[in-house]
């Protein structure tokens, strides 16, 4: 009974199934926020699985997802900007929730891997994921308000 795998399956059930439900239904604005949240959930699941199976090599999966996940959401925000009708009220709450969920997972896997470069790598993945998530969700919420309000260079 591996605690990591239990957490991974709980996070999978609590995170991925609502994401699938949110992405398949509702207005476009809700769907893109759900997809953005889905990236974070799966990246955290990858970190937990890397610990659960005692294979540090699996953190590369979380690394690539932390790098490319938010880019995928930015692609949606950029190419569907015309149709992003209205942003869900719970948009900010979901982003705050996922970023808040990132912290314990990263801290727990750092504690498990012990001090060293592997821990720094996990922290780097966590920071990358949180930053990407925040930027993507701000872009999505920014897309609804008139563009002049968001700062342009």
């Amino acid at each position: 009974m591996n605690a990591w795998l239990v957490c991974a399956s709980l996070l999978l059930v609590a995170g991925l199934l609502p994401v699938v439900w949110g992405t398949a239904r509702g207005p476009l604005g809700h769907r893109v926020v759900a997809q953005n949240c889905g990236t974070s959930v799966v990246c955290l699941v990858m970190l937990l699985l890397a610990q659960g199976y005692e294979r540090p090599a699996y953190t590369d999966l979380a690394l690539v997802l932390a790098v490319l996940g938010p880019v995928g959401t930015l692609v949606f925000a950029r190419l569907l900007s015309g149709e992003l009708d209205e942003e869900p009220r719970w948009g900010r709450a979901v982003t705050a929730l996922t970023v808040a969920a990132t912290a314990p997972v990263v801290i727990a896997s750092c504690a498990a891997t012990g001090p060293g470069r592997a821990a720094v790598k996990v922290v780097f993945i966590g920071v990358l994921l949180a930053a990407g998530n925040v930027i993507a969700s701000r872009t999505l919420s920014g897309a609804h308000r008139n563009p002049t309000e968001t700062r342009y260079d």
Partner: protein
Amino acid sequence: MRRGRLGATVAEILVWQVALSVLWLVLISTVDPLELFVGLGCALVGAVAAVAARRAVSGR
């Protein structure tokens, strides 16, 4: 002015290369001379791309 800008660009590439080499060190599991050499090469490629991207965006 041309020499000034060239110096600035080379400096920026070096800064990016150092930063990306540190990132490479964090990513790899075993550290040995060949890894460092390949890491510096990849960091140089990343640094040149970073500077080229920044200048393409800033319109210069």
